[in-house]
């Protein structure tokens, strides 16, 4: 288990390889497809984004509502493929980390290599367990999107695994090839 901090330092990204298990401490921003669409529209209009995306990590997640006394409800990853159409643009704008589940498109993998970014998977369907790593959640933008609003999360020891590293490694392809009969 490697301990890393977010926002991500280029040296930390450089050292990570597909299959590495990591424990992330620091800041993550949530965004699903509806929020991605708005971020891209803002970029196209030449507007500033609601937060400085450079070096940051996006977590593809829309939580269930927090019960009284909870920081957040269940908070596991959603399918990353729906963000593929938007991600290369955000990576070019300085986004470094992405956390979700499921395979990425060739375009996203190329952008990851080109801009030295990284894609992690969190355990899909483990929303109750993952919520324990989230210590603070505050609204940043697009409240009207409900569960799809952008939140700023402070996390401690958030468990994830490297899927696509900056050197072209791909855990989904390697893992499947190893166990395919």
């Amino acid at each position, binding site marked *: 288990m490697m301990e890393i901090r977010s926002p991500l330092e280029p040296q930390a990204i450089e050292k990570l390889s597909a299959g590495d298990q990591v424990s992330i401490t620091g800041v993550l921003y949530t965004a699903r497809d*509806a929020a991605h669409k708005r971020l891209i529209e803002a970029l196209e209009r030449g507007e500033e984004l609601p937060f400085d995306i450079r070096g940051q990590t996006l977590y593809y997640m*829309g939580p*269930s509502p927090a*019960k009284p006394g909870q920081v957040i409800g269940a908070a596991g990853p959603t399918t990353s493929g729906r963000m593929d159409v938007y991600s290369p643009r955000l990576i070019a704008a300085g986004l470094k980390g992405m956390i979700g*589940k499921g395979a990425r498109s060739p375009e996203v993998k190329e952008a990851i290599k080109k801009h030295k970014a990284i894609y992690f998977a969190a355990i*899909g*369907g*483990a929303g109750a367990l993952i919520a324990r790593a989230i210590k603070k959640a505050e609204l940043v933008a697009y409240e009207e999107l409900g569960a799809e609003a952008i939140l700023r999360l402070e996390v401690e020891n958030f468990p994830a695994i490297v899927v696509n590293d900056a050197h072209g490694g791909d*855990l989904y392809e390697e*893992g499947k090839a190893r166990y395919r009969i």
Partner: protein
Amino acid sequence: MREIDSGKITETVARLCQEANFVLGEDVLDALKKARDAEESPLARQVLDQLLENAGIAGDERIPICQDCGTAVVFLEVGQDVHIVGGDLYGAVEEGVRQGYGQGYLRKSIVSQPFSARVNTRDNTPAVIHAEIVKGDRLQITVMPKGGGSENMSRLAVLKPAEGRQGVIDFVVKAVDDAGSNPCPPVIVGVGIGGTADKAMILAKKALLRRVGEPNPEPEVAQLEREILERVNSLGIGPEGFGGRTTALAVNIEVFPTHIASLPVAVNLQCYAARHKTAAL
């Protein structure tokens, strides 16, 4: 004729929405434990342990197993000797979904205007309701919260009859292979064979309600289930797609007669969190 109060229906649906989202069935838990013990991949064993730990936390603390609390798919078996009083049946079900998702702090994931504005309805209604008239004077209600990640991997084909059994196997295995890590494997593979396109799809969904580990009572169909499960678990996808032997916990197939020209096959995948709860009034 037996009377059932619509308020009772609302109350039951609200309770089932929450129970289904908090408590994973014993059959699924058993299958996950067996898979963990049999897995060759250390990472896969670790993932299965985390899924089991997650289920424990959700049940104990009554929080959702998964933040995607799903589309509320509601199956109703309405006895023909039942008379609903105090309000209409579908209205009572919708109100139950509204209350259940509100009271349980469940995520509201339904948007209207699906191809344009996509506006959240804020209470997870409307539900997708499938009602059937059956014999007797009881009303059986099943709530199945169905997550988007697995539902998005649904597939339908109308094969040529000449493609036959092998055509069915290849189509189902390809659907699971193409879905890869997206539907949160290990999945349960619901398959509907026969009928019309719509009938095959509802059979595939209903197949997901059968207990994990319980084969189709028809030996020929049970044999097909075993064969497809073996093929699927040879794909190597494994838990969460990280590689391993457990890509599916079960393949459940339902069959219906079909037209002389047709061989419809529908696949409806269910994530490992196979959530559904049933009550009878």
